[in-house]
């Protein structure tokens, strides 16, 4: 194996992982506030379309990412309104949001399947990016890749280093108590849901702006669901989202390369690996948590909050 190939593999892994990091870190914050939003897939696909459409018409990557963020928030606001104001069931509403997102994106995006755009190019920092090995490994990714890692840090910092983060976690663990001492449960949750929508939107846009320069119906192909699984995998700990995403993305890319190199394992097993790994990790995690009885899952996850005052 030569250096170029290793770098190609690492860049490939980053491309496969980053949409998952975005979507999962957004959902992590949402779940920390006690809301279960299964609409990640729907928010991602809408973001993918919005990003593509704006990039196509304006040619501005910045505006495209912004549009994806806003589109994700817009569709998340439907979920927020339904679950927080009308107090609908989280699971049913989230599933509906996914179906709605996939449907509306397919409908609105119909005429854009004919088009293609320029991919957002990778960063090039003079001197740093040109360094041998370190340059391509550290300083030559797409700007959105750095943003993904930064967002994980930001969520961690918010949750564990700020007062508002503490309140949000308290709401997720016991919304009645948090409400009783005067915190606005609904406001925190609505904002968290909007943040989740924004992150899922950018995650989706990463697919249509960085991974492939096309828009295609259903192009998220289940990545929203993987992101949901990653949140469980992470035990609601922000940095573990990165680990989970890298494992999933890593196995996805490595198995493609393994096939190309013809390791003598049947291709079926190789392509099962990412999903198999996810299941194994989830199961072992579950068992570990049971044994130690340290529950990391927000207590009020998915429970409807009735304000009685």
């Amino acid at each position: 194996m030569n250096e170029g190939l290793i770098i190609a593999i690492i860049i490939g892994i980053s491309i496969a992982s980053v949409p998952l990091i975005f979507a999962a870190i957004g959902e992590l914050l949402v779940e920390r506030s006690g809301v279960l939003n299964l609409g990640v897939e729907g928010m991602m696909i809408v973001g993918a379309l919005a990003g593509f459409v704006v990039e196509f018409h304006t040619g501005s990557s910045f505006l495209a990412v912004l549009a994806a963020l806003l589109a994700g928030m817009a569709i998340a606001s439907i979920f927020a309104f339904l679950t927080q104001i009308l107090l609908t069931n989280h699971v049913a509403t989230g599933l509906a949001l996914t179906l709605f997102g996939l449907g509306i994106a397919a409908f609105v995006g119909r005429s854009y399947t004919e088009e293609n755009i320029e991919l957002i190019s990778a960063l090039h920092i003079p001197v740093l990016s040109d360094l041998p090995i370190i340059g391509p490994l550290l300083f030559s990714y797409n700007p959105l890749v750095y943003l993904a890692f930064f967002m994980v840090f930001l969520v961690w910092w918010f949750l564990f280093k700020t007062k508002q983060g503490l309140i949000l976690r308290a709401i997720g663990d016991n919304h009645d108590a948090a409400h009783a001492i005067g915190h606005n449960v609904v406001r925190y949750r609505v904002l968290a849901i909007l943040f989740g929508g924004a992150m899922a939107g950018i995650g989706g846009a990463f697919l249509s702006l960085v991974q492939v320069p096309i828009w295609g119906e259903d192009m998220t192909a289940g990545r929203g669901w993987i992101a949901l699984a990653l949140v469980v995998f992470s035990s609601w700990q922000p940095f573990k989202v990165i680990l989970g995403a890298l494992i999933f993305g890593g196995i996805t890319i490595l198995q493609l390369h393994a096939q190309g190199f013809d390791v003598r394992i049947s291709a079926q097993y190789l392509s099962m690996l990412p999903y198999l790994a996810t299941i194994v990790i989830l199961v072992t995690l579950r068992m570990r948590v049971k044994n130690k009885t340290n529950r990391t899952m927000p207590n009020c996850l998915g429970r409807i909050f009735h304000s009685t005052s």
Partner: protein
Amino acid sequence: MSSRRLTSILKFSLLSLMLAFTNSAFADPVKAAFIYIGPTGDHGWTYAHDQGANHLQDQLGDDVVITRIESVAENSDSERVITSLARKNDVIFTTSFGYMEPTIKVAARYPDVKFEHATGYKRPTDNISTYSARFYEGRHVIGKIAGRMTNTNVIGYIASFPIPEVIRGINSAFLAARSVNPDIQIKIVWVYTWYDPGKEADAARALIAQGADIIMQHTDSTAPMTVAEEEDGVRAFGQASDMSAWGPSAHLTSIINNWGPYYADRVKAIRDGTWTSADTFDGVEQGMVTFAPMQNMPDDVKLEAEMTILDLEFGDVHPFTGPINRQDGSVWLAEGETPPMFPDIITMDFYVEGIDSKYPN
């Protein structure tokens, strides 16, 4: 009875009579339905079927009313969709291999409805026809081009599912490439999906990183073509429809699935009452497999490709002409021998000798 009343009754009878006459002179349009596995905007498999449906509409005009349902998964969903279509249509085109069992089940329940199942081979009731195209003839042509155009001698092949259709394509492309370039190597990556632009792009990038400078795909999105376009010196072939728009400098040609004439013929047969259950497996010769314009290649390569197409049109060449051994070294075809359609071609389940990959079983 007043005379006015009588007149109105007479008028009404006359009107009914006229209507009855009109009805018999101009029969109802044939109601045709299409069920697709993917979105029509995939610019691949489903898009090609949808283009075929458009052609049918153009050809028959008011004689046909078309219903199309896209993105129907190959599970119990498809049976439900086919059943609901069967209640309202004269003919249903089920355009994916995986619709085979649901098609057969529903056909048994609706004997007056005609069923046309693409790429299948089972016709247990006489209201089912099957049809497919000899896409491996298309792969034969692009294999020759690939063998000439590669600098690294590595072809990267993005494969969907290990079904005979896909295996035929791999074998045919490889044999043709090696016939013009003995050093050719083929790297095959199975993605186990027909349509996932992200994964198809990942696979293309992996193959390119491993030295492939020609990308062939047997998946339905335009993603591999766009990846080839972004990499210097990498060329690619489109699948199912003309994908040149996604790779202005990478696109060599595309194999085009031209279903339109077949659809028009079959629906005309229903209109005229001459439809019978049949199995159709047409190729370049009948125009079911055609090609996008050849581009980004020198004139001699283009000429050779066009000659190969002519040979196929006249039936002068067969992509599988012996001597060919199976991957394990056993003899498949002796010198000059060509395989029978059934079982060898229809059920092909092995790589030919020279392909280094492990067969997925």
